[in-house]
C-alpha cells in the first residue's frame, strides 16, 4: 500500500515538474520586486512567502470560477531565481489538466488588488509577464477648473473696463449738477452776476480769443 502511495506521489511530482517549465504554454512568469517597493521594510523571500503566493492564486481561481475548489497544491511553481521570479501553471482540482491561459489571466485580473495587498506590493512591483494592469483613468473633474479661473479673470476685467468708462461720465454729471445748484442758489438771492449775464448773451465768435499766442 505504502509503495503504491509513494509511486503515485512521485508520479504526480514528476508530472507536475513536466507540467511547469519555463516558457510553458499555459504558464505565466511572475516577478517580485520587494526591495524596490518596500526599501528598508522589505521582507526576505522564503518558502512561506511562496506558500502565500500559491494560496492567494488559489483564492483568485476559486473566486473567478465561483466555487471550484482550487487548493494550494493546484498551483505549480518552478524555475525560481535569485531575482525572485518564477514560472507557474495552474491545474484543475484533483487532476493534472492544465487550466488554460485565458482563464488564469481573467482570474488574476479580477483579484489583482487582493494578490498585491497580500504582499504589500503594487501592479508595478508584482509583475505577471503578459498580463497588463488595467490603468486607472486620468483624474478629470466635472467642471474644468480652467473655465472657472477664466470666468473670474474675465469678470474682473469687464467690471474694471465698465468702471473706468462709467466713472468719468458719473463725475461729469455730478459736477454739472453741482454747477446747476450753485446757479440756482445765486438766482434765489436775486443777484444777477456778470457770469449769468454772459451765459444769457449771444456768443460772438469774432471777438473770441482762442489763440494764446498771436501768429507772426
Amino acid at each position, binding site marked *: 500500500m505504502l509503495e503504491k502511495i509513494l509511486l503515485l506521489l512521485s508520479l504526480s511530482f514528476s508530472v507536475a515538474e513536466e507540467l511547469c517549465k519555463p516558457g510553458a504554454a499555459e504558464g505565466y512568469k511572475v516577478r517580485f520586486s520587494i*526591495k*524596490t517597493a518596500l526599501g528598508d521594510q522589505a521582507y526576505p523571500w522564503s518558502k512561506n512567502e511562496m506558500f502565500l503566493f500559491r494560496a492567494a492564486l488559489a483564492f483568485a481561481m476559486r473566486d473567478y470560477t465561483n466555487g471550484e475548489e482550487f487548493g494550494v497544491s493546484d498551483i505549480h511553481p518552478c524555475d525560481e531565481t535569485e531575482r*525572485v521570479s518564477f514560472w507557474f501553471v495552474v491545474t484543475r482540482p484533483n487532476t493534472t489538466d492544465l487550466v488554460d491561459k485565458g482563464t488564469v489571466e481573467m482570474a488574476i485580473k479580477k483579484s489583482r488588488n487582493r494578490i498585491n495587498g497580500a504582499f504589500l506590493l503594487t501592479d508595478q512591483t508584482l509583475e505577471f509577464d503578459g498580463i*497588463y494592469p488595467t*490603468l486607472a483613468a486620468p483624474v478629470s473633474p466635472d467642471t474644468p477648473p480652467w473655465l472657472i479661473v477664466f470666468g473670474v479673470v474675465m469678470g474682473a476685467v469687464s467690471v474694471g473696463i465698465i468702471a*473706468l468708462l462709467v466713472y468719468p461720465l458719473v463725475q461729469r454729471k455730478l459736477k454739472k449738477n453741482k454747477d446747476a445748484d450753485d446757479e440756482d442758489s445765486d438766482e434765489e438771492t436775486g443777484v444777477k452776476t456778470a457770469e449769468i449775464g454772459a451765459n444769457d448773451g449771444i456768443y460772438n465768435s469774432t471777438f473770441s480769443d482762442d489763440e494764446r499766442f498771436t501768429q507772426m
Partner: protein
Amino acid sequence: MRLVLPNPGLDLRIPNYEDLEKMEKEDGDRPKWDNKVQYILTCVGFCIGIGNVWRFPYLCQTHGGGAFLIPYIILLVLEGLPLLLLEFGIGQRLRKGSVGVWSAINPYLTGVGIASMLVSLLIGLYYNTLIAWIMWYLFNSFQGPLPWTQCPLNDNRTAFISECQQSSTVDYYFYRVTLNASASIADSGGLQWPIVICLLAAWTVVCICYIRGISTSGKAVYVTALLPYVVLAIFLIRGLTLKGAMNGVKYLFTPDVDELMNPTTWLDAGAQVFYAFSLAWGGLISFSSYNPVHNNCMQDAVILTIITGLTSIYAATVTYTVIGFRATGKYDTCISENIRTLLNGFELPEDSITASNYNAALHHLNSSYPDTVFGLDIKTCDMQKLLSEGVEGTGLAFIVFTEAITKMPGSPAWSVLFFIMLLCLGLSTLFGNIEGVVVPLKDLNLFPKKWPQESLTGITCLVSFIICLLFAQQSGFYWVTLFDNFAGSIPLLTIGLTEMIAVVYIYGIDRFNEDIKFMIGKKPCIFWQISLRFTSPLILLVILVFYLVTQAQQELTYLVWDPDYEEFPTLASVPYPSWINVVIFVLAGIPSLVVPVYALCRLVYVRCKKKMKPEKEKAREIA
C-alpha cells in the same frame, strides 16, 4: 565731422528751446508720467520680456557658456547703449511719438515711423498669442494633479493613447490638447476654441491696462514689471535646493573660449542685444516723449542697459537650475530603467546592481554575455544630451519647464507662479508694443481727433483680436514661428539702421549734442560721439548683411508635429509651401520697403504739386 545732409525747414518743424521751456511750465494736453519710477519701470518692463527667459539662456549655453557674456556685454555697451540714448534723446527733445518724430526731422522720413508701427503691429499679434497660450496654462494650473501629468487612456484601457505613449505627457498636452496641431501650415483645420477664448482674455487684459494710455498702463507696470523679479527670486531659492541644479548652472557657465572665434557667436549676441532692447519698435521714443524736458536721458540709458544685462544673467541662472534638475531626474530614471532591465534579463537579486556600481556591472556583464546584453537593448544615458534638449522658445516654457515643475512637490503652486511671471513679462512688453501702434495711428490722423483714447485702444485691440484668430487655428503654432522668424528680424534691423543714419546725418549729430546739452546740462562725451557716428551703425550694418546672407542661403523649412513621422516624437523638418514666399514678403519686405517707398511717393507728390502750382498762378494772372 561736418557731414550733414541738407535738411531745409527743420527749425520750423520742431519746437525750439524757448518753446520747450514754455511747454514745460504749462500743463499741456500731452500725457505725463506720474513719477520717474513709473517711466523706468515701464521701460524695464518693455525691454525685459519673455525672450530674456527663453532665448538668452539658450544662446548663452550654445555659444560657449560663460564666455558668451564677453561678446554680449561688449555689444550691449557698443550697440545697445548708443541706440538707447538716441531713442530717448530724440523722443524727449521732439516730444512726439515715432511717426511725429521722424516726420518732424524730415517729412520724407515719415516712412520710418510707419514701418515701426507696422512692425510693432505684426510682432504684437504673435506675441499676444504666446500670452494666450501662457494664460491657458495658467488657468489650467489651478488643479492638482496638473493636467499635463496624465495621458488619456485608449479604448480598451490597457495602455495610453499611442501619440502620448510615444512622446510624453507634456508634449501631448501642448501639441494635442492645447494646440491640436495639424501636420502642416497649409492644413489649417478649424478654430481651437480654448485658444480663441484665451486670446479674447489676453486682448481684453491688454485693453484694460492700456485703456487710458500711460495713465493706466503706468499703474499696471508696478505689478507687471516688479512681479517677475520676485518670482525669479523664489524660483532661484527653490531651484538651488533641487537635486542636480548645480549641474545645470555649471553647464550654462562653463566657458568655452574657442566659441569666441566663431562669428555666429558675435552675430547672435548682437542680434540678441538689439531685440532685447526693443529698439526700432517706436515704443521707447513715445515713452520718453512724455518725460519732462530736463530729464537725464543719458543716465536712464545707462541704468536700463545695466538692468537688462543683469536681469538676463539672473534669469539664465534660474532657468538652468530647473533645467539641471530635470536633466538629472531623467538621467536617474534612465539609469534605473537600465538596471531593472539588466536585473530582469539576468535574473540577478535586486540589490546587486545599484546606481553607483552600474557602470562596472554593465561592463562586466557585457564582457561575459555580450549577446544577451545586446538583446536587452540598453539605452545609453547621456547627461550632456539631456541638458541640451529643447531649451529654447516655446519648447522651454511649455515642455521642459512644465515637466520639471511636475516633479517638484506642490507643483500647482509652482506652475501658477511660473506662468504668472511669464504673463507679467509678456504684458509689460505688450504695453510698449501697443504704444508703438496706437500713438502713430493717432499721429497719422487715421482716427478722428474727437475720439477719446479709450475708443482708440478698444478698436486697435478688437481688430488685432480678429487678425489673431489666424493663430487660433490648428496650424497656429507654425504661423507663430513664421512671424517670429520673419516679422521680428530683418525689418527691425533696417529700421534701426535708418534711425541711426537719420539722427546722425540728417538731423545732425551736432544739433543732437546741443539738444542733450540743453536737456541734461552737459554734452555727450567722446564715447557717445564715436559710437553714435561710427561703431553702432557699422555693427548694425554688419549684422543686417550677415542676416540677409544667411536667410537667403537657408532652405525654407519648418518643424512640424507629425504623429505619422518615422522618428516621432522628434519634430519633422518639412519645406514650406510655395505660397509662403508671399507671406514672408508681406511680413519682412513690406515694413522694410515702406521707408523708401513713402519717400518716393512723397517726392512724386511734391513734384506734381509744384508743376500744378505755376499753372494755377498763370490761370489766375490771365483771369
